[in-house]
């Protein structure tokens, strides 16, 4: 029943332990991946025309002849030292390849997250305030449609409307922020909008549901009877206690964003991490696939762990009675 700092520290400690165990297991699965290739993995990498020497060289390079557990362990040790493996095709370290592409994916994800929240919070508050009203119903139908639209269909629809019919936005390509922020953002609009629109319905529905519950609390009635303006009640009094689930959801939806980014990057020809994994899957460059999967798992685990801890700060009840 400890309160405050001690409980938070224990919460963080337990969370870290769990995350570590999960990542060890993910690493296990990821390094086992190469054993799942049908036949000799070297053939999958080299094709059927490989000579015996080439195969021996690949075996040497990927430690294919070592027992699985020792391969796993040395691979994990490598990860812990920041060595995510080396591309079989280009010889480039995987971490370097990721680092070169991370700014694109990172910018995309952050822009999408920001845009999604900027749209979903007002919409969620409004639909909760006038629940069952006309706006609420219209949005409910619209968001159902949006939820059923796969990201790549959404993206193609946006490209067709905004890039080809109306014009004004580039359909493909990327300009690094270093070459001009304006051009960079201009190229990022459509991909980021695609990712954001996929998130908005879930966000706004979650906020609406929690907000409706909050608005039935007594203190809202009290605020209302004091004659406070509705806007102030909604955004100052009701928003924060209604936002806990939304915060959790935001953290977890990093996974959805990463998945979406893979598709969107290929579609808009953006040089991001998603593009990297798709090209290496196509080329059967298994070491890169392994490295990127592991890297994304680390990112995702870190994101959820941070949200869980942030939750403790937002909601004092968690601090008193940690789950």
């Amino acid at each position, binding site marked *: 029943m400890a309160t405050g700092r001690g409980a938070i520290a224990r919460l963080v400690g337990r969370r870290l332990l769990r995350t570590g165990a*999960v*990542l060890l*297991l*993910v690493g*296990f699965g990821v390094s086992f991946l190469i054993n*799942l290739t*049908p036949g000799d993995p070297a053939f999958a990498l080299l094709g059927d025309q490989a000579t015996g020497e080439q195969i021996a060289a690949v075996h040497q390079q990927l430690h294919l002849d070592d027992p699985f557990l020792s391969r796993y362990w040395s691979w994990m040790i490598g990860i812990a030292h920041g060595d995510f493996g080396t591309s079989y095709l280009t010889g480039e370290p995987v971490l370097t390849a990721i680092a070169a592409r991370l700014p694109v994916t990172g910018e995309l994800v952050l822009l999408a997250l920001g845009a999604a929240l900027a749209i979903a919070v007002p919409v969620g508050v409004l639909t909760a305030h006038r*629940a*069952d009203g006309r706006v609420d*119903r219209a949005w*409910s139908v619209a*968001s*159902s*449609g949006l*939820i*059923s*639209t*796969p*990201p*790549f269909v959404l993206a*193609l629809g946006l490209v*067709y409307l905004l890039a*080809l019919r109306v014009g004004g936005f580039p359909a493909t390509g990327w300009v690094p922020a270093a070459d001009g922020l304006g051009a960079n953002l201009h190229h990022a609009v459509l991909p980021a909008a695609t990712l954001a629109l*996929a998130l908005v*319905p879930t966000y706004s*529905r*979650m*906020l609406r*549901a929690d907000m*409706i519950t909050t608005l039935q609390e007594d203190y809202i009635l009290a605020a209302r009877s004091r004659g406070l303006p509705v806007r102030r009640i909604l955004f100052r009094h009701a928003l924060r206690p209604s936002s*806990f*689930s939304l*915060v*959790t*959801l935001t953290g*977890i939806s990093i*996974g*959805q964003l*990463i*998945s979406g980014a*893979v*598709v969107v990057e*290929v579609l808009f020809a953006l040089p991001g991490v998603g593009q990297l994994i*798709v090209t290496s*899957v*196509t080329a*059967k460059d*298994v070491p890169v*696939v*392994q490295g990127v*999967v592991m890297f*994304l798992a680390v990112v*995702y*685990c870190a994101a959820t762990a941070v*949200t*869980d801890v942030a*939750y403790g700060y937002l909601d004092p009840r968690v601090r008193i*009675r*940690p*789950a």
Partner: protein
Amino acid sequence: MTTTTPAPDGGATGAAPDSTGAGRPGGTAETRQSAVTGTGETGERGETGETGARRRPGLPRGLRGLSRWLALGWIALVVAAAVVADLLPLRPYGAIVPGVGTRTAPRWAAEFLGTDAIGRSVASRVVYGARESLLVGVGSAALAMAAGLVTGIVAGYFRRWVDAAISLVLDALLAVPALVLLLAVAAVGRRGTVTIVLGLAVVGMPSFARLARASTLAIVDRPYVDAARVLGTGPWRILRREVLPAVLLRLSPFAFVFMAFAVVAEASLSFLGLGVPPPAPSWGGMINDGRPYLDGDPYLVFIPALCVFLTVASFTVVGDHARRRFDSRASGLR
């Protein structure tokens, strides 16, 4: 989806699902769900949690019934098309339509959904593509559900270290974003339907297992399970005879939602060029093939896209309805 699982954040107030542990199960299952697609209607969590205190938003009752019938009708149409595709008077999906140029726009007379970039019949490819989508959807849902049921029930019934071990493995599977996990499976497998089905089963298993575990936790304390135990029934028989049927019923609505996810995931994978190898048709592959002609011949993209959209929406509507039907909490029994 959390609503099918009574355990996690079951407070009727919907207040503070403790995010640290208990709140995650449903939450992550949903998000895994929505990971690629946005199919998870995470937002409904609290909504249905408020035991009938409020009506659901959206369409009035009659219209919602209509949308349900439309959804069922579309699913029936897709199933029928997939099953009897060989009997329909269609052109072979791989052959070039004689006498009609490439990229002929849809017209009733010549070729009613038009021809694609090589001159093949779009109508035929859409119908055979339905077969691929459905095969992947049903196959992966069945596999994921079977695997998830077994692991989830075992974890929920035996608890202790079995539960801890299984939960850890599920967490590890959920720690990789859905499409990325699918890509990882695609990287090592042979290209084809079998790999996609297996990959999707791996992706979906943890969500089913979490739901099954939560349902099991809610069921094992019921008197009839105690009664069976007191009568000296062995644990495996209890699991099979008492727990499994109840959990299965609670899980079945999620199977529809998962199929919606699977259809999108299959289309995404084909769209990325990693689905069934050509010339076999799939909706995602058709969208990808039509992409260069988006400006001049948008129908090449939007006909298969519409099929994906309608199928996903239908599965979601049906799953949503089934969930409300089967949700014992909403019926006040809990």
